[in-house]
């Protein structure tokens, strides 16, 4: 907790820098609008202005700099604009009792969360089973591990439409399952790697101890490898859930999902409403933070319960 002050200071600095950056980022559209409104701008004409640096423009048109802080379609919105938009699409919706309306980010966040969780479940299950297979079978280890790495270099965005079509063909309706598959695809890998590490973490003397007891393979899995891998599992889960969220959003981006945060980003892009993109991005960040925090707390609790020193 001693990190609170530094974290807030850094956050404050980031927000400050962001706020300052708004002026140069938005000066061109601000000047265009002002010019169309009849104001005198130096130099005249947005095409001419393209060859002039933003700093020069800001200096020469000082009165119009503030306009950049209140654009409808800002290139870079101010922190306040983003906060406002976030509030309008979440808190304000709740206040109006429309939390589940399609205009509410709570609804879209939920859609994303939903397939993230399914993807996470699928991915972690796959990752854990794969890890067990790898740890117990040399063949699987040798043949699977390199491909697990290669699988992560395949751009899933390219696979996304095909996953949709194929799952359509086997009779799966809707975008939820394909999204979950994509998200599982990104999620399983860190879990696999970390669990292999965890299941292999018992030292040879710990394994030998069980051998002197004449313990069966299953007993040594249950009593040694599995509990020993729990700390690794949680590290993996935290990375995995973040990856699953990335997967869902990537899955929503190009597959033309119609709801979910990725879809909001897409729609925001299509309709030229940058604020929708920004607020969806922040909502995704908040979601990621919340998910990781939940896992973190579970981790602390479980490990303490299990007697691991935290």
């Amino acid at each position, binding site marked *: 907790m001693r990190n609170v002050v530094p974290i807030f200071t850094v956050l404050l600095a980031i927000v400050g820098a962001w706020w300052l950056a708004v002026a140069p980022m938005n000066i*061109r*559209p601000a000047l*265009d*609008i002002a010019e*169309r409104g009849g104001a005198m701008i130096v130099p005249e*004409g*947005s*095409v001419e202005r*393209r060859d002039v640096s933003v700093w020069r423009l800001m200096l020469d048109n000082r009165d119009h700099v503030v306009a950049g802080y209140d654009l409808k*379609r800002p*290139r870079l919105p101010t922190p306040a604009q983003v906060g406002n938009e976030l509030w309008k699409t979440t808190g304000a919706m709740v206040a109006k009792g429309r939390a589940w*309306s*399609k*205009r*509410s980010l709570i*609804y*879209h966040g939920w859609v994303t969360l939903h397939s993230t969780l399914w993807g996470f479940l699928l991915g972690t299950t796959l990752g854990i089973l794969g890890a067990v297979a790898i740890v117990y079978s040399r063949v699987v280890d040798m043949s699977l591990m390199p491909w697990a790495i290669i699988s992560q270099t395949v751009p899933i*965005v390219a696979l*996304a*439409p095909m996953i*949709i*079509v*194929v799952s*359509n*063909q086997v009779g799966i309706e809707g975008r939820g399952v394909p999204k979950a598959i994509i998200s599982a695809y990104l999620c399983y890998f860190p879990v696999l790697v970390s669990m292999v590490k965890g299941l292999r973490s018992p030292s040879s003397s710990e394994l030998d101890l069980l051998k002197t007891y004449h313990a069966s393979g299953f007993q040594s899995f249950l009593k040694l490898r599995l509990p020993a891998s729990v700390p690794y599992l949680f590290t993996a889960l935290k990375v995995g859930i973040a990856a699953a969220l990335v997967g869902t959003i990537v899955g929503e981006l*190009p*597959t*033309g*999902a*119609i*709801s979910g945060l990725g*879809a*909001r980003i*897409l*729609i*925001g*892009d*299509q*309709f*030229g*409403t940058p604020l*929708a993109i920004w607020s969806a991005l922040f909502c995704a960040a908040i979601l990621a933070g919340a998910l990781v925090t939940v896992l973190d707390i579970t981790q602390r609790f479980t490990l303490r319960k299990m007697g691991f020193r935290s």
Partner: protein
Amino acid sequence: ADDVTLQLKWVTQAQFAGYYVALENGFYSDEDLNVTIKPGGPDIAPTQVLAGGGADVTVEWMPAALAAREKGLPMVNIAQPFKSSGMMLTCRKDAGVATTDDFAGKTLGVWFFGNEFPFLSWMSQLGLSTDGGDAGVEVLKQGFNVDPILNGQAACVSTMTYNEYWQVIDAGLSPDDLTTFKYEDQGVATLEDGLYALEENLADPAFEDKMVRFVRASMKGWKWAEENPEDAAMIVLDYDETGAQTEAHQVRMMGEIAKLTAGSNGTLVEADYERTVASLLAGGSDPVITAAPEGAWTHAITDKALN
């Protein structure tokens, strides 16, 4: 009731109002159909969904459908609710574009994903290469919005009369600042939003019958939408799951769409088809289709539906 799945070409918007109206007003259930409408999106190829069996019928543009047909996917046009094309190229006057002669050396935004074919054949008719260079034009794969024309990255962008054009206007540019080239006016229009189904399915009389009822109800929906644009837009809004569409925009879109569907009772006009094929075959060095397709359309459905 018989199940029918319809795959749209794009997200839920007034461009597809007829279908939503038919669904909402019970025109489909009157025909004893249970219709599911699947919205599309940037990476959804309706042709592929059709091939994969994810839909029975799809809304597609004819160039893409014919291209798919040449790839071995036997798609058949069973109805053509859109009479005219809404495609145009919207250019900024201050970027120096007044006529098609000004294109050379400019950067033009184009939609791909199967929507590039009309553009490509237009350019080849103009004798402009699309591989860059001074003699030709620089082509950008345009994303999902009109930003490139707003921030000066492109001189022109592709727009639909009913959609993106108004985004340019909403962003603060006035029609006076813009030069527009409608594909219709340039004589390179190709058929847009038609209904397509697979040949092998149509061979089944039961399926054919389903399609007949579907087309009949859909056209009823379209005519209702043309007459009640505001209500139609509201129905579309109700079905929009993204929650991003605005009422004003959809009403305006419906108004523009009505202009395109007007003049079609759903029957494909053969002359329009021939013009589309001719334009695609003329696609320069890299034509969209290499031979005039056979059996790419049928009047069997519309004939039965409309009588």
